[in-house]
């Protein structure tokens, strides 16, 4: 990524706090579309009683992932709700019965790649980094075509610390997940990529990797840390909290060559193409998938989930999220049932004022804003930010001064100021020529603009305009 991208305040306030589990909540709203692809069809009836982990929705469409009840209780209603993006999505609402009762689960029985992919599909896992692409499809596409698994623990968005905590709290589980994926997809090696602002997690993973695969050749990549000669995590409470009990390992899992890669903490380091380039030097050709260059990038949370799933067989019904922002009294990471409402979440974390001035689902760079607290957490939400009025008010927009900051910042080497002009003059030819479709909407251009132009939003609209003009 070299010079492009932006340097932003990390604001990782919650990094030192162990996540809190919320197992019980009064109701969950399970959106039938929590992934890229066809929405699920509810397979439960109103009034029925479900246990946590029970299937509530699935689809026959190839691009889909099943949905499971995240709490035990009664199906209160099956309704259409409007999500913050403006889409209307069918949703199953479960009212808790007060008990925390799970369905019986057993570790999936896997003997072949196909078994593994089927098991991953049954788990309901989607990319937890935010994109929400069904994981079983991603793995199927990568089987046999990939020489390296890249585990993304870069976590470059400000505030969010769920991946950081995952690496600190569940290092073994992550390594197990890596081994399962590598075994069943015949991938010889894996690299865990982590930004250099998470040194504690880096050292912890380093130790765990050497413990875990003493036989495997361990080779850490050239790191910024080697010079600092500080082999212990720097903050003492990290080392205290980040010492999980030694666990018995699954002996069926063979050793894989696992390496650690240090990345500069620069946004958007965790973006797939930048992440792959920084770790392997490979450039994903425009319009192609990472498998084209022989890599399989996966979010560290997804890998950890798979490690856990292969042990227990419990499907994707909960996830960690960071709750932070100026309006939150107790910023923290919480592990919540999928579908929990923001109102219940806010009651748990506490709000400074009566209400937050801005409610963001996801990180401050790419997350979407919700007008009210009626929104619910889906599988691919990694944060909820509740901004105070001071944080929510942005500078007014003024004329472009052609300073070129957006051009310098764009990690895809686009020219945002020209794309904006092309959109404003509805010039689809220019949008095409300027490669509007290559924009990944990371928001660096808008962030860096001194005139506060809504660059990325207009490029987004330009992409849609281009698509609709091509369909005609």
């Amino acid at each position, binding site marked *: 990524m070299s010079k492009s991208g932006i340097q932003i305040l990390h604001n990782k306030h919650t990094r030192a706090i162990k996540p809190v589990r919320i197992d019980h909540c009064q109701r969950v709203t399970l959106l039938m579309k929590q992934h890229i692809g066809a929405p699920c069809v509810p397979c439960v009836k109103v009034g029925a009683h479900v246990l946590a982990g029970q299937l509530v929705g699935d689809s026959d469409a190839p691009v889909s992932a099943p949905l499971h009840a995240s709490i035990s209780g009664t199906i209160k209603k099956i309704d259409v709700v409007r999500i913050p993006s403006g889409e209307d999505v069918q949703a199953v609402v479960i009212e808790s019965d007060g008990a925390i009762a799970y369905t019986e689960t057993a570790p999936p029985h896997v003997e072949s790649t196909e078994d593994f992919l089927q098991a991953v599909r049954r788990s309901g896992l989607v990319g937890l980094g935010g994109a929400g692409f069904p994981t079983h499809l991603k793995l199927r596409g990568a089987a046999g075509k990939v020489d390296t698994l890249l585990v993304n623990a870069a976590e470059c968005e400000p505030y969010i610390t769920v991946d950081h905590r995952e690496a600190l709290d569940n290092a073994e589980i992550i390594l197990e997940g890596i081994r399962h994926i590598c075994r069943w997809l015949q991938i010889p090696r894996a690299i865990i990529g982590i930004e250099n602002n998470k040194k504690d997690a880096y050292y912890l993973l380093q130790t765990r990797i050497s413990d875990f695969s003493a036989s495997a050749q361990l080779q850490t990549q050239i790191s910024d840390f080697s010079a600092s000669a500080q082999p212990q995590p720097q903050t003492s409470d990290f080392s205290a909290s980040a010492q999980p009990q030694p666990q018995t390992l699954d002996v069926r899992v063979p050793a894989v060559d696992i390496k650690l890669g240090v990345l500069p903490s620069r946004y958007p380091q965790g973006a797939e193409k930048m992440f792959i380039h920084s770790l392997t030097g490979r*450039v994903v050709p425009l319009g192609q998938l990472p498998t084209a260059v022989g890599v399989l990038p996966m979010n560290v949370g997804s890998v950890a989930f798979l490690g856990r799933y292969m042990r227990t067989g419990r499907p994707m019904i909960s996830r960690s999220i960071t709750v932070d922002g100026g309006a939150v009294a107790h910023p923290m990471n919480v592990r919540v049932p999928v579908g929990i409402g923001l109102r219940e979440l806010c009651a748990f974390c506490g709000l400074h004022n009566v209400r937050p001035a801005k*409610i963001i689902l996801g990180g401050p760079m790419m997350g979407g804003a919700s007008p*009210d607290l009626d929104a619910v957490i889906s599988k691919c939400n990694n944060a909820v930010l509740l901004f105070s009025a001071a944080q929510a008010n942005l500078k007014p927009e003024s004329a472009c*001064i052609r300073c070129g900051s957006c051009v310098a910042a764009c990690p895809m080497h686009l*020219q945002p100021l020209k794309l904006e002009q092309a959109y404003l003059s509805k010039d689809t030819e220019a949008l095409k020529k300027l490669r509007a479709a290559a924009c990944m909407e990371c928001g660096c251009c808008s962030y860096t603009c*001194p005139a*506060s132009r809504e660059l990325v939003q207009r490029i987004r609209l330009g992409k849609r305009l281009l698509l609709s003009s091509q369909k005609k």
Partner: protein
Amino acid sequence: MEPLQDQEPLAIVSASPHIRTARTTRGIMLDVCVALVPALLAAVWWFGTRALMVTVLSVGCCVGFEALLRLARKRPQTVGDLSAVVTGLLLAFNLPATLPLWMVPVGALVAIVVVKQLFGGIGQNFVNPALTGRIVLLLSFATQMSGAWNLPNGHSWGADAIATATPLQLAATRAPMPGLLEMFVGHRAGSLGETCALALLLGGAYLITCKVISPLIPACFIGTVAIGSLLYSGFDFTFMLQQLLSGGLLLGAIFMATDYATSPVTRSGKVIFAVGCGLFTCLVRFWGNMPEGVSFAILLMNLLSPLIENCTAPNVFGEEKAKKPKGAKKNEA
């Protein structure tokens, strides 16, 4: 109205990103003004309070014209962004301290009204406003603009000062030049803000440190002139340094050629633009019939800037498809 009270006011909804840089247009322009302060102080030191009068008048006219025009055309007021102040300062720096005061508003009128506002205001002008103001004055009032230079003498008023020629005029007639040190501190004839190299370099360093400008344009511009004068003189280093320290080269390379609106936004475009500025400066200085060519060089390259920008569009990340398998091979090892 009663039911509304039950309703919770909605939170702000806007497109991502939800955090923005603290930099503003106003902040950038303020930084440029700060960077110009050393040169202003040097101008007052060498040319007396007359230099200050010209500067204040120029800034006042630029801000006044912009405010009046925006008002007359019922457009949102933009003088708060301080860009008119920068234009005013730069215009003044390009004028001799002895210029009859009534000519200053003429230059400001051309810069702000004709070049900047009539083409749409900040960011829309296709040539540098201050520079165009200077060139219009130069072509209209050649005598006052380049004939009656004052040898700087900080404590004298215009009337007492000794009329002399600028170093470049001296060079053209093969007359002896002032010493290099004198030229570096600004003790030479010239436009009021261009003489003190020390102050201009300080300002440039400030702008580069604050990331207002990239060092690319000044470095390539000055570098090209340096190489050009070495080649022209048969590697006479004193001649080269005289060329770098004379005329409006430093003022032009650091403050005028780096104008956002009229220089390319791409990196390679900036290099081509700056090298072009340097080449045309050398052409005019060594073979033209005018002693100084910086203004004309920048003006010409301003006009070529959109073309350069189109030809140097960066390669989109991942666009070169043919070359990439080598990366996959290398990592296998």
